[in-house]
């Protein structure tokens, strides 16, 4: 794949993920603002999310969007600071995406699987 085509695809992926994340972040902010009233407990969090296919799907999409959006943004910042793109930066950002995806999906599984209490 040519460098120009790769840049175009990454630009598109960054904007597409941003559009999805915008909706996710609005829901996440509203949930957080309401959920912290009266203190936050594991029972309260897990009571809302465990066994819920809807929350699992929502947070799954959220993690996918973040794992795409954050590394592309970091890649642009690092390349701008170094003055050029390189394969090393791409590999490092791919690794960061993999870490975010793995930890994020693990977190989604942790809060959504198991019995609803």
């Amino acid at each position, binding site marked *: 794949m040519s460098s120009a085509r790769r840049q175009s695809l990454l630009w598109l992926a960054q*904007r597409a993920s*941003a*559009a999805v*994340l*915008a909706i996710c*972040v*609005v829901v*996440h*902010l509203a949930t*957080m*603002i*309401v959920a*912290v*009233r009266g203190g*936050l*407990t*594991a*029972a309260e*969090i*897990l009571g809302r999310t465990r066994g819920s296919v809807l929350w699992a799907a929502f947070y799954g999409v959220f*993690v996918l969007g*973040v794992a795409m959006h*954050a590394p592309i*943004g*970091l890649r642009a*910042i690092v390349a701008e600071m170094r003055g050029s793109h390189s394969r090393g930066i791409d590999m490092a950002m791919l690794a960061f995406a993999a*870490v*975010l995806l793995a*930890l*994020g999906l*693990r*977190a989604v*599984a*942790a*809060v959504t699987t198991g019995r609803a209490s």
Partner: protein
Amino acid sequence: MNEGAIRRNDWRARGHAGWWAFAVHRISGLGLAIFLPAHFLVLGQALTGAEALDGVLAWTDRPLVKASEIALVFLLAVHLGGGLRLLLVEFGGWRAAWQPALIAVAAGGATLCALLFALNLA
């Protein structure tokens, strides 16, 4: 003009809302990217049971951590506001006259979110 004569760090070029919007968007994005792995690791504690997650939540019940949480809510909300402005600029066309108002709405909205979170957290 000789490239060497360009003053790349000229602060006069940064004294406007657009530059500050760029800086805040970049700093908030970096902050969120650094925070995310820790956030996921904490939520992953629920794999070993609700008690483990409660242990971490109890640790967060201290002023400095609460202040950090409020700051993170602000960073998330301001990155959202700044990002929506960028999408509007890139897909809706550049309207110079709208930019100060859009930046002010993004900053105000983020401040409101952080204040609402702080009030409920208290």
